């Protein structure tokens, strides 16, 4: 499996660059992952989304539905795409260290 370097931390990643060891995630990892998504600097708005996703994941073990993400953070979907060009699932969730959702989705 491919690996990814963020400062002193080495993480395993899948084919699409999602980290496989969510426990190793931290702010530095998030910033490094953001760069792979074409986001050079994480602004306050980026962090608001990332922290929300992180907290949801820690509480529920999965990613939230996108509508809930929008409702709870106050961002519209197009705003999320402006912040993370690959969108909420492939962009924001990746930066927040969440796994990709699978199944009938």
């Amino acid at each position, binding site marked *: 499996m491919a690996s990814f370097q963020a400062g002193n931390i080495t993480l395993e990643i899948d084919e699409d660059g999602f980290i496989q060891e969510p426990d190793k995630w931290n702010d530095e990892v998030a910033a490094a992952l953001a760069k792979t998504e074409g986001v050079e600097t994480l602004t306050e708005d980026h962090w608001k989304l990332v922290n929300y996703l992180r907290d949801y994941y820690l509480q529920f073990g*999965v990613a939230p539905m996108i509508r*809930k993400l929008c409702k709870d953070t106050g961002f519209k979907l197009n705003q999320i795409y402006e912040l993370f060009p690959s969108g909420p699932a492939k962009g924001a969730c990746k930066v927040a260290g969440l796994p990709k959702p699978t199944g009938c989705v």
Partner: protein
Amino acid sequence: MATPTPDTIEYYKKEKLSDIDYEPPAGGWMDTPVNFRPGSWIYPGKAKHLQYLDLPNPREWVVTEKDWKLQENWKEIVLKGMSERLSKYRSFKLFMDICVRCGACADKCHFFIGGGDPKNMPVLRAELLRSIYRNDFTAIGRVLGKIVGARELTEDVIKEWFYYFFQCTECRRCSVFCPYGIDTAEITMMGRELLGLLGLYVNWVIEPVANCFRTGNHLGIQPHGLKDTLEFFADDIENATGVKVKIPINKKGAEILFVTPSGDFLADPGTFTCMGYMVLFNELDLDFTWSTYASEGGNFGLFTSHEMIKRLNAKIYAEAKRLGVKWILGGECGHMWRVMHQYMDTMNGPADFLQVPKSPITGTVFDNARSTKMVHIVEFTADLIKHGKLKLDPKRNDHIRVTLHDSCNPARALGMLEEPRYILKNVCRNFYEMPENTIREQTFCCGGGAGLGTDENMEMRLRGGLPRGNAVRYVQEKYGVNQLAAMCAIDRATLTTVCNYWAPGVLVTGIHELVANAMVLNGEKERTINLRQEEIPRAESGSAEKGGAADVR
């Protein structure tokens, strides 16, 4: 925006994808190697999921690398596996023997139509397996070899199987046209079982299977997460209707256990379908319960092996028994119904602790579900409408011009053809059919079923979705159709992509979303927004345009 990559639809130019080359390669099919180009195959199953499920040969491997890290005695394993299955499944043996290569199936597969690869002709897809059968299990093949279409099992054959058995959605459209009734889905299932013996799974299938084992559903939603999700839906329902719906979870002694695909809990537009069920049940004051254990109607075991179908399906009867319900109601899922209708009662039944399903509202006894004890919600709701038990105001859906995509499994495995149409015509006054060779038993697949609906497989999804997308575009242009209704969670996810590409402007919906939007509820407020929390366009007086109620009922 980031540069498009093969996993996004923006990457594919329509003129390029529509320019399909049906000319077969110059050499023979046995001499044409597989080309694993980006966008046409699926990532391997991760070792951790195989380990979780006690499946053989868990390891990390890469599709595009030469060494797939098979067991040393891989060939022996496959031939032994084939031998066992030939004696265990009469259908498999029969399908290996009887094909006369008439070619009736050849142009019926959506992947062949949209891609032009001859090995996506069902006859040739089966031949990938049949050639090995001839070589190792028939006298004539042993003697005459290639002359009678036999060939030796090599690693390249295994790679070819992996590529093409994961380019079949097990939709069974080809089988409708086969004069012998050869079921290509069963052939693909056998191919995938044999690949599984070597630890060759795709992650899009095996991770949901592992999740389902751990948490009860493909997405890995835990009990408190499901509760949180349903409460979120209830808030939105209240916002739209003014009615606060009840959310019974794991309720012992309820009359009915309700099971739906977990996609309905996460992905739009399936979430709106889920809200539709909640509105309906609340209005009927139905004595039902959700379950956090049997929290998945779908069964990705169907895309893995017969053993896995059984292992995943077992929880539904087990939960029905634990909760002490009388019968089971199932949601708008596709492949779930192939499992329920054709495997469940023999694999995990008899469910003699349940009763023959009877609608508590109409008194209708669902004799067709006498064996499985499980009723499809579309059948349940059609019966309610037939008996006048729902107060409907279809004018609220007048801005919608809807067509029905017959989801493959409800249509071809369950024969659920009239009920969804009956419902749609009662809740929406503008209903239009797509061309007849693309609906009902002949319906075209979404191109993403059977575990193929993942983004790294985008080229094949768009190609496979071409016939359906083309038919949608036809009714879009001819009748102004703007919504496509489907009763399958995979459809709701993948047809959204297909429509965005082939028929942009057409939205995908579930049937019960439209039902709930048309339902006049007890104690409702003035309905100005729909379940999507969008303003309902005001209908002009006189409402529906041509093709209105009189035309469609």
